[in-house]
């Protein structure tokens, strides 16, 4: 289709092979599914654990707040790649042996939970103080206040941030290839080392990422306005 664009005299080493491309697409699509599963599971961990981190930073105990705050800062300012290695290699030394899959999803989930805790915190802090006072006046318990009053109002402003990190976690899954999780880059590397052709595999991986993350970003924007309308904001 684009053969006219790549004349041999321009790029002598560039030879896109369509037959080969169709051959590797099924393998890459399978790997795409793995990538989505890894990102989804990691995100689920991050959503739940991030909420705990956010609530812990709001607790009355100064020590707890300080420790969690420092932990979040530490995780946010060190490379995910290094954290993946750390959990995967140090775990067995202290008696926790995890498969690459589990270890990878836990690491990426914990990493992003620190980012999500900041998003939750911002959302919770955006709820006006009067709402808390009104809930107290109605004799609601803290749990009830969070569940019925604060969290529903904290979610809409948090959605853009939560959505960005969903796309972010998806784009960070290639790092799991270093411990042998069979996601897109891992598969592309395997294909490349079998045939010594990297052009098609890496280019397709890039296209697959674009094809998934651009619509996801649009979907998140639509979802945010949907939630806002639902809650009458």
């Amino acid at each position, binding site marked *: 289709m684009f053969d006219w664009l790549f004349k041999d005299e321009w*790029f002598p080493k560039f030879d896109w092979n369509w037959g080969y491309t169709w051959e590797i697409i099924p393998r890459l699509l399978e790997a795409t599914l793995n990538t989505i599963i890894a990102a989804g599971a990691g995100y689920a961990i991050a959503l739940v654990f991030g909420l705990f981190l956010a609530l812990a930073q709001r607790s009355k105990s100064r020590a707890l707040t300080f420790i969690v705050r420092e932990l979040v800062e530490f995780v946010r*300012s060190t490379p995910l790649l290094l954290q993946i290695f750390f959990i995967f290699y140090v775990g067995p030394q202290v008696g926790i042996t995890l498969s690459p899959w589990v270890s990878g999803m836990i690491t990426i989930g914990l990493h992003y939970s620190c980012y999500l805790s900041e998003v939750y915190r911002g959302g919770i802090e955006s709820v006006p103080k009067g709402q808390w006072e009104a809930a107290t006046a109605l004799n609601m318990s803290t749990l009830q206040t969070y569940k019925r009053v604060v969290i529903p109002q904290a979610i809409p402003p948090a959605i853009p941030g939560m959505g960005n990190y969903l796309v972010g976690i998806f*784009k960070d899954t*290639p790092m799991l290839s270093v411990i042998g999780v069979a996601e897109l*880059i891992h598969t592309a590397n395997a294909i490349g080392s079998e045939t010594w052709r990297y052009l098609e595999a890496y280019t397709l991986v890039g296209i697959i990422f*674009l094809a998934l993350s651009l619509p996801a970003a649009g979907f998140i924007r639509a979802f945010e306005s949907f939630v806002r309308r639902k809650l009458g904001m």
Partner: protein
Amino acid sequence: MSLFEFISQYWPRLLSGTGITVAQFLLSSVVAIILALIFALMKMSSNRLVKGAAVTYIEIFRGTSLLVQLYWIFFVLPLFGLTLEKFTAGYIAIGMNAGAYGAELVRGGIMSVPRGQWEAALAINMSSAKRMWRIILPQAVGIMLPPWGNLLIEILKGTALVSLISVTDLMFQAKQINASTYLSAQIFGTALIIYYIIARFMFTPFMRWFEGFMARKLGKA
């Protein structure tokens, strides 16, 4: 082996790795800042072609993984006749990736400079280039410094990926030492702490100082 013994034995390799990491960080930051400025201005252009080029660049680099971009630049670009050395490929890839995110920050910063400033510069007959350089950008820098601080931390973390194309940075050294000694906790723990020290106790205070410096320059402190 205790942590102290460990460090006293391996500090030369850790130090040289840290040096490479810092070099990668500084070079990628420079590339990112220059690209962010160029593409932000291009995206604000009224020429459709220029604007389209900037939007395409930003969406491609924000829509794919840094690791994919790095591998593509290192393994595929040579087929187009452009072979980069691994060290160069590393900071170019990270800089191009962060530049796409930075372009949106620069654009946001420029847009949030009050309209009156634009009009005043026009009223005293400044050319548009001079207006941008002397009036708008300095104020925009003041506005966008905090998000740039976060982006530069992301760049620092991104430099760990260059170890995967065997640039001998801190991450690479840590992996090598781990492979030959199996002292995983010591080596990966030490590397984590080194990254943390660079980010938290060297870079963050510098950004605080720089934010204060800009605020004073702009007469806001």
